[in-house]
């Protein structure tokens, strides 16, 4: 950890002012940032503690959806009655992540901005383009069991580790941000980005911009949904592959469906083509398999993670089955249904 200045603003304008400049970091729950600072991966010279900003509420939006404050904790969000009733997919995805203790501290803004769990990124004794541009990617051809199979670049094959973000992608949420140039609303699918030749950029936030909230559209998927997370043990591990499905059935035909994958790319992975081929179809394994093929088209293993391709295919099919049957994956049973 290096030395840093510390500010704890109480209003947004002040926070944005404090947050401008080089090597500044916003501190929310700290469950990721502080770890990274201890490991000398994050080396901010100024830390702006945003926990005193009035961004902790969960409110109805005019459009009829919900606005999740950036500083509402993951626990508050997952157990909010409105979230549970109207967006159980989101609640489920949050509860699939980390542990109760971490979720109590973690915030919504921090969650979607958490950084990759790539082993190399975390270890300053190793090369990593995301941490130190130009050093090379340590994971390429080496220990990459947890890495991406889609949307990779020769510079970086990291994944985005958030479970919550996968559900938000399926729900077509929007991220509300503010900064020196004013407020913006970013569709969730545009919020995270692929590594391309700038792997150090996880998302499309501009320097100094702050997430104030996440808007959920009015559309609810409270009957046919599932968040299925496959990992190395049944809890407290990041996803090797996860699938968020939000579905609407009309007379046993699929009227609408969204499928987002976690653990496979630098961002939650969605492809509308894969969803489109299910429209109007009555739910069955074969159709689900076809959608999986389209969603995974072009997937490429990195050696130690080749298994993720068949794993993702099977997980997509299962999650679609769970959603269609109205039997979503439980996050508290000690089993995969």
């Amino acid at each position, binding site marked *: 950890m*290096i030395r840093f200045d510390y500010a704890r603003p109480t209003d947004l304008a002040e926070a944005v002012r404090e947050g401008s400049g080089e090597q500044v970091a916003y501190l929310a729950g700290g469950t990721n940032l502080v770890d990274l600072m201890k490991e000398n991966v994050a080396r901010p010279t100024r830390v702006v503690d945003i926990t005193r900003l009035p961004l902790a509420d969960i409110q109805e939006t005019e459009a009829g959806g919900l606005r999740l404050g950036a500083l509402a904790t993951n626990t508050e969000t997952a157990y909010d009655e409105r979230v549970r009733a109207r967006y159980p997919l989101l609640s489920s995805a949050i509860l699939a992540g980390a542990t109760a203790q971490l979720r109590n501290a973690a915030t919504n803004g921090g969650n979607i901005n958490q950084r990759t769990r790539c082993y190399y990124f975390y270890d300053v004794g190793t090369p990593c383009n995301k941490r130190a541009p130009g050093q090379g990617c340590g994971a390429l051809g080496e220990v990459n069991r947890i890495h991406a199979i889609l949307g990779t670049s020769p510079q970086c094959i990291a994944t985005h580790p958030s479970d919550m973000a996968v559900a938000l992608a399926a729900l077509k949420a929007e991220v509300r941000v503010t900064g020196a140039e004013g407020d913006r609303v970013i569709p969730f699918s545009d919020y995270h980005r692929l590594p391309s030749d700038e792997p150090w950029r996880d998302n499309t936030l501009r320097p100094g911009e702050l997430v104030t909230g996440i808007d959920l559209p009015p559309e609810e998927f409270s009957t046919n949904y599932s968040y299925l997370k*496959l990992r190395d*043990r049944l809890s407290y591990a990041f996803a090797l592959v996860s699938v968020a499905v939000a579905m609407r059935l009309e007379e046993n035909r699929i009227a609408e469906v969204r499928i987002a994958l976690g653990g496979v790319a630098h961002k939650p992975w969605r492809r509308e083509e894969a969803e489109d081929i299910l429209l109007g179809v009555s739910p069955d394994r074969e159709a689900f398999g076809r959608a999986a093929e389209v969603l995974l088209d072009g997937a490429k293993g990195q050696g130690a993670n080749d298994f993720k391709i068949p*794993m993702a295919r099977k997980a997509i099919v299962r999650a679609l089955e769970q959603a269609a049957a109205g039997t979503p994956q439980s996050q508290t049973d000690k089993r995969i249904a």
Partner: protein
Amino acid sequence: MPDTRHEPIRVGIGTPLDRVDGPDKVTGQAHYAAEYAVPNMLYGVIVSGRIARGRITGIDETAARAVPGVVEVLTHRNRPSTPWLDRNYKDELNIPGDPFRALESEHILFSGQPVALVLAETFEAARFAASLVDVSYEAAAHNIDFEASLAERFLPSKKRNSYHPPKNHGDADAAFAAAELKHEARYHLATEHHNPMEMHATTVDWHGDGTLTVYDKNQGSQGVQSYLCNIFGFSKKELRVVNAFVGGAFGSGLRPQYQVYLAVMAAKHTQRSVRVVMTRQQMFTHAHRPEADYTIRLGAEATGKLTSIDGDATTSTSRFENNMEDIVIWGMINYASPNMKGEYCVAPRDTYTSADMRAPGAATGMTLFEIAMDELAYKAKVDPLDFRLLNYSDIDAMYRTPFTSKALREAYRDGAAAFGWDSRSPEPRSMKEGRELIGWGMATGLWTAEFVKTSAKAKLTADGRLEITSATSDIGTGTGTVLVLVAADTLGLPPDRISVRIGDSDLPHSPVQGGSRAAASGGAAVQLACEAVGKRLLKAAEKVDGQPLHAARSIEDVIFADGRMILKSDPSKAVSCADAMQAAGLEVIEEEQTAQPGLADRISQMTRSRNVHSAVFAEVRVDEELGQIRVTRIVNAVAAGRIINPKTARSQILGGVVMGMGMALHEETLGDNRLGRWMNHNLAEYHIPVNADVHDIQVIFVDEPDPDVTPLGVKGVGEIGIVSTAAAIANAIFHATGQRHRSLPITIDKLIGT
């Protein structure tokens, strides 16, 4: 009829007793090595090296030294001089080779090797400055890939003391060639790191008068004391080592770790108190269970009766020491076969030396052997349990000596009954519920029962309180509680009148705690010490008016209960211990005794085998499509002689079983061979089972009276729980799915295939 008023209420050996240190631990009163408050202390932060092999070409400390509060940066260039000879660095385990010496020279032997120690007035300054130490290297070619290292495997000419070479019988090759049934396969176990909860840590209290107290995380205070005295030139009067509480170790504390060496070096150099705590990442830069490769060839008659056992194993070590394990002997000891042969080698890689980790050797060798046995059982079309019984050996089949006891048959019987093994359907993939395939597997566990020279002191005061002291360690196993029970049993005192002090080199002699021998050895010493106190009490009773115990010729003639001595032949005659002491004018009775194997024991150790046995039964449920394995039931039936404290003993088995589940499904340190470095060096990515992975575990202790194995009839339970648990699980996975996995852990990717 004895007078019921004198019916003793006995709490003693066999009574389930809560941990005596439990309240201290949960209320924070128990201090671990890094928690001692020492005034005016320096904080030391270790800088870990980047490359796996080569040399340091430069160290720029300027920026680090410029940080306010930094007092010193120790490196190989400015460290105080230390003795030359390896002899001075040998620890109790005495591993052949050149023991690692931190900051010794510019040579780099493994990735993460300490290259500097930054000392500062605050932890924050030390940590910040440590990040500023700029080290440059010249790298040399390295290898940490086990498979590649097998090309260099060899049998060391100088063997580790604890190593038991296999004893061959008959002609295993010819018997295998002629066998009606054959099985041959290669098995593998990944590298595992111990990862106790408590990081290795040392607080040196530099008293300023030439003496120092070293609070250190280790499994043997006196071994670490000798090590430090030999290197730094202190006498044992000057340097005291305390390990009163240890937050787990699993073998990682059997040898002094480099932080204690660095902390004492720094204290001596600065003449100040110093604390050095490893980070979790640094916990991956030293001890680890060796990676193992084991080829097993089994020959049998058509009935399944073994005719040949042949094992050839290699385990990993470093380039500077030859750590050895007993891998191939376990199957040879356990199963009757006229022909048997074993070969063993080590393979060096550019890592720190591998080390003993819970049930070293057996957890690897017996576990993998039991997967091979399962394979042959299927080939012979014999139920896996019947197959073990068919090849059961009443004697030690390798040494050809009888056992002091072996209640393995009973363990099989009781374990199978509790599990319901009878209703198993033999065919793989034949049991199913919903989407899950169900598999039942079993395996045999084996470990040794040891007894080593240990001393203890018992001190009874006139207020009826007893204090037990011994240098033995309690690495979380419940040793202290066990010693209280033995004392309660011997002197008939309630446990709340007995206190225990352990984990301090000033206390009566005890070797390093490991190998499941602390309860047997420490318990025997406490019993002797308490008996000596008892004798003096009986003598003191002579002074009591009317000499009610006159008829007692020795302590054999009285029962100690309720703080009294009661005449066996006439229970109406009794004297309280307090009255006896008062009558004799005694304030304190203090006795120190040493339990050690006598000549007869030593002869018996050569002519009789001493082992702990277990039968492990596992149920798994596998969602094959998604590669999800759940271990829904384990029954572990253990034959471990006498159980002193059923409660803590059960906990030991539970912990061992959970660790075995980790071995089966999770634990694996992943290495990057290009960098020569372990990569998943944190507890988020190095997986061990969590609560959600653990279901029903049933522990059974079968009756196994054995007065000969150790003085108390105790065999020890620290390791047996992990042995072969992974085999039972792997065998259950085969039964469920028909997939045979020979490389542990069986992670989700291995199951899901392509």
